[in-house]
C-alpha cells in the first residue's frame, strides 16, 4: 500500500512541478511580450546581456565538442559501413544523426551545464541575499525582471547554437571523410547536403526551442525556490542540472516520437 501511495504521491509531485514550469514559462513569455510592446528600456539591455552570456560564451566549447562528436560518429559509422563497402555513406550517417539528434541534444546538455546551472545559482544567491525581496519591494516583478530576459535570450540563442553545432559536427565528420573515405571537403559537404532534407534541420530546431524553454524554466524555478542558507544554492544548482537533463531527454523522446508518427 505504501509503495503504491509513494508512486501516486511522486507522480502528483512530478505533475505539479511540470505545471509550475509551464506557469513560469507562460508568465515570463507574457511579460517579455508586454515589455516589447511597451518598449521598456530595462528589458532589452538585460536580454542582450543574457544572450551574450548564453550564446557567445558557449561557442568555443560547443564548437570543440560537436566537432569531436562529428568525428566520433563518422568513425563509428565507418566501422560498420566499410564491411559493406559503403564508406561513401559516412557523410549521410553523420548528417542525419547530427542534425536530427546529436546537434540539438549536445547543445542542450552543454547549455544546461553552462547556463541552466548559472540561472539557478544566480537566482538562488539573489534569494539568499534578499535581492529578490528587494526587487519586489521596489515594485519589480522578479519573473519579468529576471526570468523573461533569460527566456527570450535562450529562445533566440538555442536555435542559433544548434545550427552552429550541426555545422561543426559535419565538419568533424568531414575530417574523417577526407582522411579515410576519399572525400574532399567540397564533396563531403555536397554529400551532406544531399543527405539532408529540410525536415531534418527543422525538427532539430523545434527540439532546440523546446530544450531552451525547459532549461530556462527549470533553472529559474529551482533558483527562485532556493531556501535559506548558502548550501541551498548548491542544492538548487544541482537540482537544476539533474532535472533539466532528465526533462530534456523526456522532451526529446516525445518530440522524436511525434515526428516519427507524423512522417509515418
Amino acid at each position, binding site marked *: 500500500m505504501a509503495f503504491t501511495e509513494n508512486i501516486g504521491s511522486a507522480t502528483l509531485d512530478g505533475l505539479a512541478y511540470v505545471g509550475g514550469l509551464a506557469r513560469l514559462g507562460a508568465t515570463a513569455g507574457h511579460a517579455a511580450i508586454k515589455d516589447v510592446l511597451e518598449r521598456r528600456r530595462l528589458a532589452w539591455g538585460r536580454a542582450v546581456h543574457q544572450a551574450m552570456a548564453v550564446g557567445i560564451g558557449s561557442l568555443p566549447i560547443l564548437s570543440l565538442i560537436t566537432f569531436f562528436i562529428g568525428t566520433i560518429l563518422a568513425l563509428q559509422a565507418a566501422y560498420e559501413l566499410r564491411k559493406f563497402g559503403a564508406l561513401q555513406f559516412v557523410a549521410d550517417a553523420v548528417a542525419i544523426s547530427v542534425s536530427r539528434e546529436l546537434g540539438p541534444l549536445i547543445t542542450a546538455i552543454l547549455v544546461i551545464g553552462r547556463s541552466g546551472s548559472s540561472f539557478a545559482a544566480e537566482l538562488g544567491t*539573489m534569494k539568499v541575499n534578499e*535581492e529578490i525581496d528587494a526587487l519586489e519591494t521596489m*515594485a519589480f516583478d522578479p519573473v519579468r525582471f529576471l526570468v523573461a530576459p533569460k527566456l527570450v535570450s535562450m529562445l533566440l540563442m538555442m536555435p542559433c547554437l544548434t545550427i552552429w553545432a550541426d555545422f561543426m559536427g559535419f565538419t568533424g565528420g568531414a575530417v574523417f571523410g577526407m582522411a579515410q573515405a576519399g572525400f574532399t571537403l567540397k564533396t563531403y559537404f555536397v554529400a551532406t547536403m544531399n543527405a539532408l532534407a529540410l525536415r531534418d534541420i527543422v525538427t532539430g530546431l523545434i527540439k532546440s526551442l523546446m530544450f531552451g524553454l525547459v532549461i530556462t524554466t527549470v533553472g529559474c524555478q529551482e533558483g527562485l525556490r532556493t531556501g535559506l542558507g548558502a548550501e541551498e544554492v548548491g542544492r538548487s544548482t544541482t537540482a537544476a542540472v539533474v532535472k533539466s537533463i532528465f526533462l530534456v531527454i523526456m522532451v526529446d523522446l516525445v518530440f522524436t516520437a511525434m515526428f516519427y508518427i507524423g512522417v509515418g
Partner: protein
Amino acid sequence: MPDELNLTTDERGSAQAAALSIRNLHVAYGQREILHGVSFDVLVGETVVILGGSGSGKSTLLRTLVGLESPTSGEVIVRGKNLAQLSENEWEELRQHIGISFQSGALFGSMSVGENVALPLLEHTELDPATIEIMVRLKLNEVGLNGYENYMPAQLSGGMKKRAAVARAMAMDPEILFFDEPSAGLDPIIAAGIDELLLKLKEAFGITMIVVTHELASAFLIADRMVLLDKGHIVAMGTTAELQASTHPRVRQFLDRVAEPEISQEIDYLQMLTGEVPRPRQ
C-alpha cells in the same frame, strides 16, 4: 502573557495622521503563528523602532508591513490603504512610495552602486539618462557615498553597503522608509554613522521611518517611539523615556540586558513552552 503597557494611547494616534496602522495582526508560517494580534500606529514623520530579541517576530512584522508576507488575519493600512485589498496595480503604485533597507543591504551584485540606485528610477520614471545620473549622484551624496557610483557592491565595506542600500531606498523619494537591522554587524563607529544618517534623513526630509533593531543604543538615539515585541506579542509601547521608566519585567530584562534564566526546573521549562515570562536571574 502580561497586559500590554500601551504607553502610547490611541488618542495620540488619532490627533495626528497615521502613515501606517496595524490592527490585530496575526502572521503564521504554516501552522506556527509568529505574530499574535499586534496593533499600533505610526504617525506621519515619526520614527518608530521595533525592538525585540531573536525570534520575537520583529523581522516577520517588517516583512508583513512591506507585503512580503501575508497576514492570516488583521489589517495593515499604509497611506490609508488596506494592504489585503490592494490590486496588483495599486501595490505597484504603493511600493513607489515606500523604501526598504534590508539587513544585508540586498544590493544587486551584478550592478554597480550607481546602477543599483538608478534602477527604480529607470523602471518607474520617464526621466532621461542624464537626469537619472544627476539624481543618483545626489542620492549617494545624501548618504555620504559621493564618487562611489562606479564601485561594485563587493568592493564596499559593510557600512558603505548599508549606506548604498539607503540611497537606493531613497531613490524614489519615499514617504515611508523601513530599515531591517540597520546597524547589525557593524563596528560601533560605523553603526553610530548609520544612526546619524537616519537622524539626518529624518531632519532633512521628514520621512516616516520604521526601524527594526535589537541594538539598544541605536534605538534610543533614533526613536520617537518604541515597540517592544516578545514572542509575537507587544509587551510595551511608548516614547524612549516611557520605556526607560517602565517597570514591566520583560522590558526591564531586555533594557537591562538580563540573561534568560537557565532551564533547570520543570516550571521554567513549562513557562518557556507556554510563552510565559520567565523569572529573570537574580
